[in-house]
Each structure stands twice: as structure tokens, then as C-alpha cells.
């Protein structure tokens, strides 16, 4: 079963807000000068911000904010966020891989930006809705 796709817009302002909330002030997430100096195409989103947006999709699919029992991802490609009002978009989809008898649902999750996968091996286990 495929779950309905969810799209998240990501702007520079979102990265600044996430930096403050998470305490991750690495300048690759807010300074083009620094990001390009270390060989990136420009400012990129925190991997953990992408992972957090994907977690929103997962908890919304689960229908409960406390349903996630296991959640892991591999970061494969940076999400470049241009310095304009639109920023970029991350699209999240998932398929149900397994529903266990003890009430767990395992999801295989896909997250893309501009048509390219930004995560691999993204998996979540959630408590099946009652």
C-alpha cells in the first residue's frame, strides 16, 4: 500500500529557525560564503531538518504524534536551499512493507528534492492505529 505524498517547502528562514531550535549552527546551513568554500553548491538544509520533516509525514500517516517506535535514514544527497522566497521542496512518500501481528507497521519511506532522492534506507516502524 502506498501512502499519500506530502510536500514540504524549505526556505532559508526555515533553516535559521531550525538552527536556533536545534542548536546546530554549522555555517554550511546559513552562509553561502562558507558553504561554497567547503565545496558545496550553496547553503544546504540540515540533514536532521530533512529527517524531522519526514518524521512529520510519518506521524501524520500514523495519526498520532507518539506512534513512532523506530526511525532511521541515510543521508545521500544534500538539499540545496536557494536564497529566495520559494526555497525548495521535499516530497515524501512511503509504502507499507509489513504489518506485524503485535501491532506494528513498517514503512519504507522515500524523500526527494527536485526529483532526486535525498535519503536512502529510510525506514520507520510505527504502532498501527487502533
Amino acid at each position, binding site marked *: 500500500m502506498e501512502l499519500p505524498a506530502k510536500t*514540504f517547502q524549505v526556505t532559508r528562514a*526555515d533553516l535559521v*529557525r*531550525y538552527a*536556533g*531550535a*536545534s*542548536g*546546530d549552527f554549522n555555517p554550511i546551513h546559513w552562509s553561502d560564503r562558507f558553504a561554497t568554500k*567547503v565545496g558545496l553548491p550553496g547553503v544546504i538544509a540540515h*540533514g*536532521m*531538518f530533512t*529527517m*524531522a*520533516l519526514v*518524521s*512529520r509525514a*510519518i*506521524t501524520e500517516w500514523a495519526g*498520532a*504524534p*507518539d506512534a*513512532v*517506535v*523506530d*526511525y*532511521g*535514514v*541515510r*543521508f545521500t544527497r544534500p538539499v540545496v536551499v536557494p536564497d529566495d522566497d520559494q526555497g525548495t521542496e521535499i516530497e515524501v512518500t512511503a509504502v507499507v512493507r509489513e504489518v506485524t501481528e503485535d501491532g506494528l507497521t513498517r514503512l519504507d519511506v522515500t524523500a526527494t528534492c527536485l526529483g532526486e532522492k535525498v535519503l536512502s*534506507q529510510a525506514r520507520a516502524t510505527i504502532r498501527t492505529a487502533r
Partner: protein
Amino acid sequence: MSLDPSFVGRTYPPTAPYQVGREKIREFATAIGATDPAHHDPAAARALGHPDVVAPPTFPVVVTMAASRQIVEDPALGVDYSRVVHGDQRFAYTRPVVAGDELVCASTIEDVTTRGGHGFLTTRTDVSTVAGEPVVAVWSKIVVRGEA
């Protein structure tokens, strides 16, 4: 970048307790656009059986950051932080983090490898309450990029 494989199995002393505040959970939830009332309203969280507002799934990184620093900044390990990129991240929850938790982190280096000139470092951080109740186990793999 070559990392010393003898660090596998090394454990680090527990970090100072982190006091999880209600406003910090609200701030984090707002920053990721998580609007579920259980992240913001104690009454909504209590209706789900939690003592106070519930943190979103990736909130534990806020708590484990000090523990990660302990390892990445261990001079004996010698990680060049300017060359670090995040490889993998995983959380296995016993229960969600909630406001009022006082959490300590105990970290272990699970794996150290060098491949294709890059170093790979996998750490496991067990997050528990000061009373010893396990809350979440957090795995993080970082890649230390080799010199081009």
C-alpha cells in the same frame, strides 16, 4: 581520513543531565512545522497518556549533541570536524521524550572503518532518565571526508 579502529568499543562517561523544557519542545516543534496539539498543549498530551508535552521524533538530537561533541572532539580520536558530513541517523524509542524529563546520555563507539580514503564512525548513545529509565537509543554515523 584514517580513523583509529582501536576506538571501537570505547565508552564515554554519561553527560550532565539535560532538563527537557516545555518551551524547548514547543520551539522545536514550531521550527519543523509540527502543529499536533500534543507537542504544544499539556492537556492534549495528557489525553494521550503522557505527563506533559511530547517531543517530535527527532528531538533527541538536541539532547545527544553534547554526547556527540564528546566523541567528535576527543583529541585522541582526531576527527577533523570541518570535513564531517552526516551519514546515517536512527532512533529506537522506548517511549517519547516529554517535558520534565531529565536525561543523561551514555555513548559507545560501535564501528570505525576507513574506506575509499574516507573515515566512517558509528556511535550509539543511550538516552535515559537520571533515575535510569531507558528512553531512546540513538545511532549516528558520520563520514570524515578524505583530502581530495
